[in-house]
């Protein structure tokens, strides 16, 4: 039994939420359904902890690999695994999902059962997309993420939900369809060079003969899909709408994890598959990223709605991640910037997730998110005030919080690449302080002069159970970043050094089918 768990741990964390989703949907009572959902997501989290502790940090290879042929005639395999690039994101996903489920424990959401199961399906989609190393499976999981979110916004959203969710889906589908076309071209290019069909990323990484123009087209197609998901300026306008309309839990997942799929996609696909195109387009992406940083910050400053403010701040923060991912120095990616980008994804997930939770809390109590409706809340909600302060500080990147480590590493790398870009991007740090502290100022401080606000109750025990860990994480990640970075170092080093001839090996201490990976593709499908 234990051996089986060990050898198929990745599949377990992918599909367990799906199974639990079905159980939760058909469970006889709402209470039971909640317990099932929460239990399932906690087990998933524990299973992902198993990966965390047994992960070999010294190796850049793909670990916990599972390979099964699915459509051998077309070279499609079920290939999943974990390496330093996706490990932290998998952890983030499996950590945030139970938090979201706890936050729904006492909510008065209608149709709670389908809501819970959609969240769990979403978890399957996200983890699947993170660990899939086969283009077809990646694409399927990528789209699986979309559908639950479509319903979550469309059914449980605010007043303008249909517009928001349609926009979200159309935008994303538009990008991902182009990506699908590019993936098929890539598949054929691989066939031409190596003489067999394969959709496995490990095989596709071995493509060496691809002209610059082909690379450019494919790179742009992939990048567009990811840029929309990130969202990179100017493809960001779906985000404020989606966030404003989405229910709190939807926003948390959306900002916390879904957006990272875009930036993760850059790291996993766009950079190593098309290195020459990357060199060509890295200035473009960097420009868009920097514009996004400044623009997002200025937009956030102008918002009167707390949730919209946080949404625009995501545009700004993810601009940092994008510029950190594409810093090229002497034909190599800058390892510092790359580390910062990956770390910033996690930080943003935690701190922005926390911010959305907090905004959700006051929305639930006051049914408004307009900043001017609040003021002086910290007198009646001290716990809330502390958590909001910590999340804010994490978001503005104060040293001692995770946000600083991420932003610092990114900006350091960018500055080494181009001082001007570094300086421009750093202005985002100043602007960040302005709009985030403005948020705090409007909500927490000032006179408590509105009658409705005087009766607000502080965070309940249940709310504390997920806000306290999130707040502690914000600080822990800033004080002991190496604890997290150690796991990613080897993989990032490998990616940074070898981006132009990236090969991902499969770790040797794993089970049998692994060695077939290389062999299987050689013999079949000639």
């Amino acid at each position, binding site marked *: 039994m234990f051996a089986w768990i060990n050898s198929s741990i990745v599949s377990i964390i992918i599909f367990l939420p799906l199974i639990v989703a079905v159980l939760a949907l058909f469970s006889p009572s709402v209470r039971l359904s909640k317990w099932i959902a929460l239990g399932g997501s906690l087990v998933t989290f524990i299973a992902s902890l198993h990966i965390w502790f047994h992960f070999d940090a010294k190796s850049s290879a793909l670990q916990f690999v599972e390979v099964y042929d699915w459509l051998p005639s077309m070279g499609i395999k079920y290939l999943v695994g974990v390496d330093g690039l996706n490990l932290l994101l998998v952890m983030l996903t499996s950590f945030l999902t139970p938090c979201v489920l706890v936050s729904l424990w006492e909510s008065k959401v209608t149709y709670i059962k389908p809501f819970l199961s959609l969240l769990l399906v979403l978890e399957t989609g996200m983890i699947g997309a993170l660990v899939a190393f086969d283009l077809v499976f990646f694409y399927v999981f990528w789209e699986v993420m979309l559908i639950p979110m479509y319903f979550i916004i469309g059914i449980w959203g605010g007043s303008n939900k249909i517009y928001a969710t349609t926009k979200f889906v159309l935008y994303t589908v538009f990008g991902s369809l182009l990506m699908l076309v590019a993936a098929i071209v890539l598949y054929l290019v691989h066939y031409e060079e190596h003489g067999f069909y394969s959709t496995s990323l490990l095989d596709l990484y071995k493509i060496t003969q691809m002209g610059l123009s082909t690379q450019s087209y494919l790179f742009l197609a992939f990048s567009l899909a990811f840029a929309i998901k990130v969202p990179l300026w*100017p493809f960001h306008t779906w985000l404020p709408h989606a966030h404003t309309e989405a229910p709190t839990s939807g926003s948390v997942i959306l900002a916390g994890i879904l957006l990272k799929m875009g930036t993760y996609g850059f790291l996993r696909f766009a950079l190593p598959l098309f290195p020459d195109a990357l060199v060509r387009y890295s200035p473009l992406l960097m420009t868009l990223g920097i514009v996004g940083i400044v623009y997002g910050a*200025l937009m956030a400053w102008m918002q009167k709605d707390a949730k919209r403010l946080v949404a625009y701040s995501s545009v700004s923060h993810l601009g940092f991640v994008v510029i950190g991912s594409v810093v090229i120095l002497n034909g190599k990616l800058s390892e510092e910037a790359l580390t910062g980008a990956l770390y910033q994804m996690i930080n943003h997930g935690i701190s922005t997730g926390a911010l959305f939770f907090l905004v959700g809390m006051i929305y639930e109590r006051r049914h408004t998110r307009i900043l001017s409706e609040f003021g002086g809340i910290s007198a009646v909600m001290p716990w809330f005030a502390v958590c909001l302060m910590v999340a804010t500080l994490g978001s503005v990147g104060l040293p001692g919080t995770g946000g600083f480590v991420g932003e610092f590493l990114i900006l350091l790398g960018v500055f080494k690449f181009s001082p001007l870009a570094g300086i421009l991007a750093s202005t985002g740090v100043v602007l960040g302080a*302005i709009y985030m502290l403005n948020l705090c*100022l409007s909500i927490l*401080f000032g006179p408590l002069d509105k009658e409705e606000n005087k009766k607000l109750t502080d965070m309940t025990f249940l709310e504390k159970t997920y806000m306290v860990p999130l707040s502690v994480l914000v600080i822990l990640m800033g004080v002991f970043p190496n604890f997290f970075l150690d796991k990613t170092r080897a993989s990032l080093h490998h990616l940074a050094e070898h981006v132009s001839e990236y090969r991902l090996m499969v770790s040797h201490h794993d089970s049998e089918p692994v060695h077939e990976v290389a062999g299987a593709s050689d013999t079949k499908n000639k």
Partner: protein
Amino acid sequence: MLIWLVLLFPLVGAVWNGLLLPRHKLLSHSIAVAGVGLSFLAALPLFVSLLGEGAAGSVHLAFSWIQAGDLDIGMEFVVDRLSGVMLLIVTGIGSLIHIYAGGYMNEEKTTARFFSYLNLFIFMMLLLVLGNNMLVMFIGWEGVGLCSYLLIGYWYTHKPNAVAGMKAFVVNRIGDFGFLIGIFLTYKMFGTLSFSQLHEVLAGQESLSPALTSGLTAIGICLFIGACGKSAQLPLYVWLPDAMAGPTPVSALIHAATMVTAGIYMMTRLHFIYYLAPSALMLVAFVGGATALFAATIALVQNDIKKVLAYSTVSQLGYMVLACGVGAFDAGVFHLLTHACFKALLFLGAGSVIVALHHKQDMQEMGGLKKYLPITHAVFLVAVLAIIGFPGLSGFFSKDEILWRAFSFPGVGWVLWLMGLFAAMCTAFYMVRLLCLTFYGKNRSDEHTRHHLHETSSVMWAPLVVLAFLSIFIGYLGIPPFLAEAFHGSNLFSPFLSSVIQVPPAGEVYWSFLHEHHSEALEWSLMGASTLLALGSASFAFILYRNGPTPFLQERKEAFASVYRTLYNKYWVDELYDRIIVRPLKEMSEFLWRVVDLGIINGGLNVLGQSLMFLSGVTSFQMTGSLHRYAVVFILGLMGLVVLVIV
């Protein structure tokens, strides 16, 4: 081992008070005092161990903090004579102010949050002081900014306080932006951020290439922007006067004695960079001199007792920066030390006055308090004499040292000296004005307040007495050499620091004048001139204000109305910044949001969507919904296909 204790105690105090939130005021006060006091006690032996001849600094690594690529930043701390001096200032003066704060905050319901912030501040300040690389220093640097933000806005229900806190944070962030760029530049050029490694690299250079010099100049200027933010220099000083919204002990600790001196400390720590970048230092010197003068003139006419002290702080910080600018880092640190004592004393004394008057800060409602607050008056008098440079008190020695070093700077030195001299005259004037308006003349407060006037509790005046003794005697650590010879003593301070602060070999030619000998007569006459001018200005102020605001003063005010208004409104700098920076930025954002974001990007997309829907509307006329129509078309099409295939 001790260094960990030094750091640990305030942190434990902060966490204890912050998380457990003890209800009992005395308990939270004791925890906080113990946190910083024990830290001071632990720092004492550390400092003593540095006293020995040629005692070298030591570096302690706690753990590796950030490791990515080639970058490996350790959480490492340095204990040498420079950080030792700062350590004592921070924990020593910090302890006194913590004790005082217990009395000052006595009217609050709970004080746990306050003392938690205060201890956290001490911890962050220690990180700043002890950090052995730029990044650890930067944690402290922003950390003290955070504490300052939280403490300025401590009484957050009053909106202006919270706004002032935010202003402080944001303006500091602008400075920190410069600091950050400086860090990036340093890393790009040298591949390390560690002070000791940087020192090794730069001290090992016999001469500098032009590229290196310009790089160092850029680094120096960027870091100085950071210092401008934190140490409230032109043009980033605007946050400090507003920061007076915080409780007075906070103003004393953070906005006078310790945090605001971080910029001077940082430049002194990096003296080896600045010595090699003389043009950056020239900028530093002029900014410092200009700030000293500028802020002193504003202080001349302010009526809020804390505002006067705030502008006085800005001005004194200008002195320190000026000292750094002329390469007299030791003089800067010396003035930092004496200033920490007498300015803390001034603020705490003002705090006592404010408490006695039930939180009134307008000097026009004070006067004649000497009778009611004798102890406060006595210590306040000492502090005023110290700051105006009354011979024999601490400020006299440190200020004179700076003026002398400015004067001996070749070339433009005399300009800087004149700036400093004039600022000193202003200082003497406004401090005596403040003293007179507060303590002398007739009492101008209302009947009710006057009735309740009485001396503060011993927990408040005892620290003041200690500070008064320090203000008198601490100056004797740094007697100018020529005076020392005359009195058979010696200057202890500069030689003590000289093992840390040395001109790197590559800069020795430029800085050779530092070792030049000047005639004693010149030194005597300069000292005499500045002292006489300051005392003259002080007596002038005394004569004018000893009876409080008189009709004569009112007439003068009206005669010089335009000058008065300009000064009273602080040269309209805040309004100017609002007009040329804040508002345009806001308008631009508004434009970007309304026009670009909602209009062009989002609107464009909506137009795209709508035009597609219109197109589909145009082409969907044949979708009648009638099954039969569909079937007919289907069959016809099929037949057509068959025909096509056959023919």
